């Protein structure tokens, strides 16, 4: 019996891509329905549970919205200035990303992986970045099947990439490391840099894995130690995978 099980396991792993691909193809329609049902049901229950905190959250969001609006006005002026300067220098505008829209089908129960409904036949390849509509970085393609792909979330333990916090005087660079279970750490930040809670972490072009300027998260808690040469900070991710239905894959950047 034991020998039979071991043989069975070895055989299965030899053809694992084909076997998994078949099951994903077979189950995708049911999983899509279940994902949408779960999404709307959890929204409904969350609304009931969080009704008390919603008022406070609304006030905070209104305040943040006003701050952001003032920033948008400033950025619009900068954009105009930038376009004028580019025209004067004869430079073309930076092309936007080439994107593909995908839907989430399922999430791995114990690891930070998700399954999406597009694969090799749609031009998707390994290591392509996955983002949301708001340019929030989700992860990268880790495994490609014919009609499906697996996405390793940035919170996965094996995920790490260069990132930065944009400050007026000087950018603060570091490395974003996944901690598992949707936790992310901003690591290897020189001790002398002044981080503050709420700072926004974006991707940096240094690593070459992701395009520059994708949103990663917000600094939640800073861990500074006099002995260590670097400081660390916990990041609150901008995405909540259970609230997302559609994502985008960047085909080229």
């Amino acid at each position: 019996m034991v020998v039979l099980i071991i043989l069975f396991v070895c055989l299965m792993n030899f053809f694992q891509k084909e076997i998994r691909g078949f099951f994903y193809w077979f189950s995708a329609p049911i999983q899509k329905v279940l994902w949408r049902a779960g999404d709307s049901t959890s929204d409904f229950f969350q609304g009931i549970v969080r009704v008390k905190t919603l008022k406070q959250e609304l006030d905070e969001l209104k305040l943040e919205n006003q701050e952001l609006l003032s920033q948008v006005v400033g950025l619009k002026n900068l954009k105009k200035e930038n376009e004028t300067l580019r025209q004067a220098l004869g430079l073309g505008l930076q092309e936007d990303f080439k994107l593909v829209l995908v839907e989430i089908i399922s999430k791995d129960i114990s690891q930070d992986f998700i399954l999406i409904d597009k694969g090799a036949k749609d031009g998707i390849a390994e290591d392509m970045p996955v983002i949301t509509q708001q340019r929030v970085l989700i992860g990268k393609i880790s495994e490609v099947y014919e009609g499906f792909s697996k996405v390793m979330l940035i919170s996965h333990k094996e995920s790490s990439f260069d990132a930065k916090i944009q400050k007026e005087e000087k950018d603060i660079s570091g490395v974003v490391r996944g901690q598992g279970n949707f936790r992310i750490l901003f690591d290897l930040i020189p001790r002398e840099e002044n981080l503050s809670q709420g700072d926004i972490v974006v991707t940096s072009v240094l690593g070459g894995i992701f395009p520059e300027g994708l949103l990663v998260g917000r600094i939640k808690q800073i861990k500074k130690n006099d002995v260590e040469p670097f400081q660390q900070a916990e990041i609150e991710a901008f995405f909540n995978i259970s609230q997302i239905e559609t994502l985008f894959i960047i085909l080229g950047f």
Partner: protein
Amino acid sequence: MFKKILISIIVFYFLVLIQTSFLVHFTIFDAVPNIVLILVVVWNLLEKRKNHLGIVNALIGGFFLDIFSNRFIGFYVLILVGLAIFIKLIFKRYVRIPFINKI
């Protein structure tokens, strides 16, 4: 027996789909309840020692968990079958739970 195994295959297949696509929206302290594991443990606890459907169920449940996870195929099969064998051969031999009715 064949009919029971067929029913188990269908039940565990749908349980895994529900777990990976529906229950992920309802996390408890950022964790998703593993209903396949719970069912395998409860089944083996309630089943008579001479019956072996609990171990077969562990094999089926583990296989479907492996298919929809990112680990190598056999990871959950080994864990669940090992757990089922442990409950059947060791736990039930030395621990008596009088209020559990045998099914």
